[in-house]
């Protein structure tokens, strides 16, 4: 049997659309979960049922606790990623245009990228105290390396012809980077960003949980930790559900961006 290298038009008999299949699986999971909690007699202090979780979700959305926690977490992520992206792109540009920049990026990436971001949290807490800055710094630290390394690879693999066209048009360096290198390297940049945000999202929540111990007001990690403190499993589960759903949402946003750029431009096959 041969495996097709490329997607071909397939003849299919009727199937459910994708979203419906996913919802079905989700529903089965929820029902199993509810049945387990209702029938097994497991302590409600250990596991909350889906219904209890839903109630906690509704209540904490209504009283504003969850919305403000979501806002804080997303804000930490956005600021950290924003700084990480700008710094990463600058590092990659330096690396393409100067020998020193390349050496710098090589050394920094080699030394720092193996460090789990959360491992430097104690240090940033020492520097910035129990503030958002400490978390943001960790997110920046974690996102800079995948972004700059991927962007650098992207810049390096731009074809000779593309470079020659840029030279032929007599572009300035800024124009070359902004108008040619960035879009040409976008497939690489986006995969760097994907790594970075996945890391960043986990780090934000993790760091907030650590902060929660210290009793500071904060985001979703803090919310979960707080719920544990008050022995409120439905709220813990509600927090987890929100974290996961936001992750799915961010991923969807990401796919949308890919669809509108590199897929549309034929630089990546549609999934």
């Amino acid at each position, binding site marked *: 049997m041969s495996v097709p290298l490329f997607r071909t038009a397939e003849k299919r008999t009727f199937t459910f659309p994708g979203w419906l299949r996913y919802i079905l699986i989700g529903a089965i999971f929820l029902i199993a979960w509810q049945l387990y909690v209702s029938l097994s007699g497991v302590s409600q202090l250990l596991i909350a049922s889906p219904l209890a979780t839903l109630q906690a979700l509704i209540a904490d959305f209504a009283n504003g606790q969850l919305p403000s926690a979501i806002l804080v977490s997303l804000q930490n992520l956005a600021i950290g990623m924003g700084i990480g992206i700008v710094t990463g792109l600058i590092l990659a540009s330096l690396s393409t245009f100067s020998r020193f920049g390349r050496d710098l990026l090589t050394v920094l990436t080699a030394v720092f990228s193996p460090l789990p971001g959360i491992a430097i949290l104690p240090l940033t807490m020492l520097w910035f105290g129990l503030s958002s800055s400490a978390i943001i710094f960790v997110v920046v630290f974690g996102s800079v390396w995948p972004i700059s390394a991927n962007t650098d690879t992207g810049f390096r693999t731009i074809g000779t012809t593309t470079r020659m066209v840029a030279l032929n*048009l007599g572009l300035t360096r800024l124009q070359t980077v902004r*108008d040619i290198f960035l879009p040409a390297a976008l497939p690489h940049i986006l995969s760097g960003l994907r790594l970075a945000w996945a890391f960043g999202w986990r780090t934000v929540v993790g760091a907030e949980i650590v902060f929660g111990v210290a009793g500071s007001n904060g985001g979703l990690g803090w919310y979960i930790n707080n719920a544990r403190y008050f022995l409120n499993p439905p709220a813990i589960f509600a927090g987890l559900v929100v974290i996961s759903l936001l992750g799915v949402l961010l991923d969807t946003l990401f796919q949308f961006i890919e669809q509108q750029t590199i897929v549309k*431009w034929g630089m990546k096959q549609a999934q």
Partner: protein
Amino acid sequence: MGQPDKEPIVQLSHVSLAYQHGHAQSATILEDVTLSIQRGEKFMIIGPSGCGKTTLIKAIGGFLKARQGEVTVNGVPVKKPGPDRAFVFQDFEQLFAWRTVLDNIVYALQVTKHLPRRQAIDKASFYLELVDVAAAADKYPHMLSGGMKQRAALARALALEPDILLMDEPFGALDAITRNQLQLELNTIWRRTGVTIVLVTHSIQEAVFLGHHVLVLSSSPARVLEIVDTSQAEDLDSPAFTAHSLHLQSLLVRQDKDLIREQVVPLSIVQ
């Protein structure tokens, strides 16, 4: 039939070319090339595979510095690439994948001529019309056939209204029919614009059909074997056409075995 002015636009005097890699220099690729190209003529470059045709046209384009001798355009020594010498490459990657066909040209006009967008669009549309790809103006390059991509690339080069059109085997990757079509169109465009054309080709038929002069290079290190005046041989059935073709063929026979095999087919059948 229009005749080129008797005024040189490109001059090479005793030019030797080699590639520079860091401090190491490759063996000499072209040696002691002296030639002049008249304003408004169609100048063809032909020679054995790998002899240095691309290297030569790159030097005229300013992508490569002469090791010895001097390349001048309009009497001024060539120092770097510029939009006054618009390049059309052989491969299909020369259009920016992230811009539509129209936007590819609009962008080139905005950065080189600083035209306002409205004006750039008008001009771009005019040239797309000229090369017969106006219908694909709003498509992204990956949706075009090879022939359409080359037409679009030609339109972009023409829109820059360059002094010289440098073409490195622009039709090399196309099928015979599309190729012949584009040769005819290039002639029409030349008649309308009077632009100087320097074109590298592997095909004797193409060289004789299009060219006023055909430069024949020897195998490496390449030297000028002969510059043949083919300005009287535009009719494919004329005795002059056959005579020039046979002459070029005999010059190349000693140089390139592949070329002979390709050209054994009687030339009249090719059209």
